């Protein structure tokens, strides 16, 4: 079981709710993924546009809703967004994300650490999206974050574990769950993340933008389970030279 703060989850796959072609498709993909935690975002209400009821079906599914602070460029903006999110969803759980540059959406490590420290003091359960920097992850842990969410690659890039060597150090050092977020583009990437010891992964674009999001959600769920099972089993070591799996005897020497 995955434990974050005071809650336990049997699924180690977190889903982002963005980019689905319709709310119905999003709900079906969430159900197919078996996820128990889904991210959401905030927007200023457009008074002249009717709103879809996004929340009722999600609440009926009994999943932890995880609002994010997307759009925040500074710690100050993120704290304001966090307070809005807490009221909108009546939850202190928060995915903290601060990315000032829209081209690469790289998280600002300095603003993220500043905001995380304040938000923990304000009673939030903070899950920060962050660079795959072992020192930063340790600092985020030390200020009281409930988990760390280092990136595999740029958000929505589908490039997989580009930061693999750093993620291995982060996992090895962490005393809070490491959730690998962003850039996972295929179930094999998610399996690899789980094999290296991640506590969970967060996937959005790779599922929502696939040709069949519902089937892909199921594929990611299987990959996460397979990767976790392999991690617990303990992978055999890699080496340069071959080692025979069959006996190399001279039983054919008489020919």
């Amino acid at each position: 079981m995955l434990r974050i703060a005071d809650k336990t989850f049997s699924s180690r796959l977190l889903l982002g709710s963005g980019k689905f072609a319709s709310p119905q498709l999003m709900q079906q993909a969430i159900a197919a993924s078996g996820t128990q935690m889904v991210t959401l975002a905030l927007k200023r209400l457009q008074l002249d546009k009717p709103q879809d009821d996004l929340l009722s079906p999600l609440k009926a599914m009994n999943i932890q809703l995880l609002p994010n602070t997307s759009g925040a460029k500074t710690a100050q903006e993120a704290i304001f967004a966090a307070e809005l999110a807490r009221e909108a969803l009546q939850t202190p759980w928060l995915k903290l994300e601060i990315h000032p540059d829209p081209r690469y959406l790289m998280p600002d490590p300095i603003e993220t650490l500043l905001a995380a420290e304040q938000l923990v003091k304000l009673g939030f359960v903070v899950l920060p999206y962050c660079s795959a920097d072992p020192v930063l992850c340790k600092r985020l842990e030390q200020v009281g974050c409930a988990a760390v969410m280092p990136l595999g690659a740029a958000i929505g890039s589908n490039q997989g574990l580009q930061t693999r060597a750093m993620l291995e150090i982060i996992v090895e050092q962490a005393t809070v769950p490491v959730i690998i977020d962003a850039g996972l583009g295929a179930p094999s990437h998610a399996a690899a993340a789980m094999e290296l010891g991640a506590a969970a992964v967060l996937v959005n674009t790779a599922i929502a933008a696939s040709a069949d999001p519902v089937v892909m959600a199921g594929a990611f769920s299987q990959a996460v389970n397979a990767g976790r099972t392999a991690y617990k089993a303990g992978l055999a070591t890699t080496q340069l030279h071959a080692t025979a799996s069959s006996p190399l005897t001279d039983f054919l020497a008489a020919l």
Partner: protein
Amino acid sequence: MHIRLNEQWLQLTASCTVAELLQQQQIPPQGLAVAINNTVIAKRQWPAQQLNDNDCVNIFHIVTGG
């Protein structure tokens, strides 16, 4: 009195609370957050929180996102 609601000026015939404003504007309260003059107003305070002339009210709502 006048308030600014999500960047638009709005005339109110009488002073009202945040909860009354949402009702008048027919905005369902689910998944909403409200800030007055850049201070977030807790949901439990909406029935008591009075609006004042020239207040800048912003309403936010939950949308999909990763």
